[in-house]
């Protein structure tokens, strides 16, 4: 695993040959963008010397947004199969991907979401080459065997079942399924149960061969390395991979405007009722994204926020979570709150709606706005405490916009005024664009007594 050192040194002696393999595109906020000439793989480098570790990540521009009925969940199932091996890395050879990564001491995983799939490893910096090599191996070399799919399908089905256990997850899935009717954000990333069970290995291979190519991916290295060293590693392992034979298909489905409030109710066994309100908003690259983020903190960022004060401090809700979702296509602004037993869910719903109406009618104070801006600013600085946190934030940015969006984010947040916050509420928070959902415990435990019998 450590035999890369002499190689990389010899490369470093001749940096021009390495740099020649890349086009340097742009630098911003310390992030440097390169593009491999041979196959258009985008590469971001950010040196960060916080500790002798480095994070390497590959973001594929494919997510559940690229799926349709019949193979919902395919992107995620494929992500699982990506751990089952390549000709070089597999269990038969004693080099299973996860085992190799574990032995390096890597903190690693892969995740799938609406707009992307990402694979990442944080390792001691002398193991960086080993993980670059591994990611290059599975970009085009995944085995995707049917005998691996069958047991992995049931693993994923258990992941789906675990999600179904959680009222929050049930509510969030229903929210998207209700707010989106035509656009693929309608279906959850984990997929519908029968699609998880029914999708064939051939279909997964087709998915892989359509989307897993260097020209549909962005790689990044963050941490303790020299630039030439990192460029040499990426060129050595990814340089020979070909460009996709066909252009990467684009999603063209657009969700039409919503013309009236939508409501849903889930009745299931449970202990606590939940309330979820979501309004249709904008795509991440839209100019109003930053004002919506500031609004999110004003409403739900900590104990002093408006909805925490109105719900938790008033003993109506047990907690409150405000999410200004940021996606490649127009998203939602959601408020989720578990209802304190004994309280009517409608009381929580109307409190949230009143909170929104107050901002619409009276605006927010300069102090609230400044607090929210500073909270977000601090989050961005805290990100830089660890390489994997930067990688996570940068990956999301790439998925929904591009890396410059991440670099520009603090400045754009700083520029948000209290007028902007009020304006976005007036623009987007209408009853006609609202999706409201309630989770009700089947036995009416919500309105019942506090005590509960052990079975």
């Amino acid at each position, binding site marked *: 695993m450590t035999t890369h050192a002499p190689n990389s040194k010899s490369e470093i002696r001749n*940096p021009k040959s390495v740099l020649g393999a890349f086009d340097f595109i742009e630098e911003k906020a310390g992030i440097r963008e390169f593009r491999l000439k041979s196959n258009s793989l985008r590469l971001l480098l950010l040196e960060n*010397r*916080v*500790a002798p570790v480095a994070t390497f990540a590959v973001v594929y521009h494919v997510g559940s947004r690229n799926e349709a009925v019949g193979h919902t969940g395919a992107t995620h199932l494929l992500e699982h199969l990506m751990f089952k091996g390549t000709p070089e890395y597999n269990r038969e050879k004693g080099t299973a991907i996860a085992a190799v990564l574990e032995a*390096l001491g890597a903190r690693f995983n892969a995740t799938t979401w609406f707009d992307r799939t990402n694979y990442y490893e944080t390792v001691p910096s002398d193991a960086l080459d080993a993980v670059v090599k591994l990611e290059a191996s599975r970009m085009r070399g995944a085995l995707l065997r049917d005998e691996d799919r069958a047991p992995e399908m049931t693993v994923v089905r258990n992941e789906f079942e675990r999600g179904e256990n959680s*009222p929050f997850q049930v509510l969030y899935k229903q929210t998207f399924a209700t707010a989106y009717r035509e656009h693929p954000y309608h279906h959850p990333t984990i997929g519908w149960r029968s699609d998880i069970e029914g999708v064939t290995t051939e279909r997964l291979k087709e998915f892989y061969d359509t989307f897993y190519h260097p020209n549909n991916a962005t790689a990044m290295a963050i941490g303790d390395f*020299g*630039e030439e060293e990192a460029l040499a590693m990426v060129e050595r392992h990814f340089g020979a991979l070909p460009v996709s034979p066909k252009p990467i298909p684009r999603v063209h489905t657009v969700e039409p405007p919503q013309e009236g409030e939508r409501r849903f109710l889930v009745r299931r066994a*449970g202990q606590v009722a939940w309330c979820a309100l979501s309004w249709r908003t904008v795509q991440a690259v839209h100019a109003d994204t930053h004002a919506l983020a500031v609004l999110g903190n004003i409403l739900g960022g900590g104990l002093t926020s408006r909805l925490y004060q109105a719900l938790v401090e008033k003993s109506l809700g047990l907690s409150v979570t405000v999410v200004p979702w940021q996606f490649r296509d127009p998203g939602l602004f959601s408020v989720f709150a*578990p209802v304190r037993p004994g309280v009517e869910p409608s009381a929580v719903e109307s409190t949230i709606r009143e909170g929104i109406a107050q901002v619409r009618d009276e605006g927010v104070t300069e102090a609230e706005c400044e607090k929210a801006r500073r909270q977000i600013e601090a989050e961005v600085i805290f990100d830089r405490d660890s390489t994997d946190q930067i990688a996570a934030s940068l990956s999301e940015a790439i998925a929904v916009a591009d890396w410059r969006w991440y670099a520009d984010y603090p400045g754009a947040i700083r520029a948000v005024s209290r007028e902007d916050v009020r304006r976005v509420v007036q623009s987007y928070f209408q009853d006609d664009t609202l999706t409201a959902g309630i989770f009700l415990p089947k036995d009416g435990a919500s309105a019942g007594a506090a005590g509960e019998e052990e079975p």
Partner: protein
Amino acid sequence: MTSASEAATRRTRVPFAEAVRSRSLGNGARLFVLENRFNPTVSLSGSLHAGGLWAPAGRRLLASVTAGELSKGTERRTKLQIAEDLESRGASLSFSADASDPVGADIGGAALSRDVDVLLDALTEMLRLPVFPEEELEKEKKRLVGAIQQQQDLTSARAYEAATRRIYPAGHPFHRAPASERIARVEALRREDLSSFYQERYGAATLILAVVGDFEADRLLDGLERRLSAWGAGPSAEIPAPPAVSPSPGEETVPMPDKASADVAMVEPSTLARRDPDFLACSLANSALGQSSLTSRLGVRVRDVEGLTYGIHSSFSATHWPGPFVISLTVKPESRDAAVAAAREELGKFLESGLTEKELREEKSSRIGKFKVDLASNAGIAQAIDAAVYYGFGVGYLDEFPSLVSAITKEEADSAFAHRVDPEKFTVVSAGSF
């Protein structure tokens, strides 16, 4: 552009034992600070002996509620004023007493370095001058009752709690009473209970504070000393020995309707504490058995080969006191018996032949690599220093750790694990729609 030789120099780091500056105050407080100038942030981790063990049996929750209520108002500021001062700067500060460690209460905090004084002022006020306002406690009680009920919706919590009731006698810190009982105890809490627990357990003698980040070390130590030196010492650090536990193994099912996935907890009392000489050997063996759902023996068999679960793990819970040894997994209800049988079989094989040489080698390099990766942030370093001192190893433990792990032999790991885990002693509880 950095040359390879510069890179090599850069990676030669000053040992933590030298780089960390420390100061012990007359009242017993121990302070540790490390300058790390790469990013303008500060992270803080601390502890003191104010966990559930020190609360009366049957009222262990006093520890966690008292820790939580420290931030609800001081002699100088209301809860809202403190929160406003911290939140308006993106700073955070929290106190907690987790049931998994009956001895300690934990302190965690972070701020941008320009706000470090705001963070330390709030910390000092909460530690030294809390007032436990009546109305805040009443609000918290309502929230806690709801939270206990909400937790009763989790198959994992229900399985684990039921298992602890079969293993640990009522009143033991690891015994999780039924929800209805816990709710009644929450409702019975009075402000005076918190004040007196605070008076008895909070003091400088057991306080450890580690602060890492972008600041000048001497200035920070002076600032901490100025704020804390007049605080009373409080109780000493002597920890009573845990009582012996003699459970009778059994099986139980907790029925919960409408749950697509069930949770299984296989639990037995362990004798392994964090300070035991075989702790590292034992935990290395456990990593090979069940630390990762993807690569450990249990994961490879039950997840990778048989596809029965999304997650299966085994773990010790070793603090100053030995906690339980647990194998936990999620499974669709129909497959429970197959999954439990497979887990038992893998454990049996593991106990019979122990680690392979390859596993030992890989677990060692894994553990050493993960240790480095965990030390890659201000928060990670602060927590590691706090833990090393809390368990009496000292800051030098951070430097010694890799060689301590490297030195473990197969015989040590195998015999430690076999000594600490008895396959006949498991209580197996499943919670879900059976």
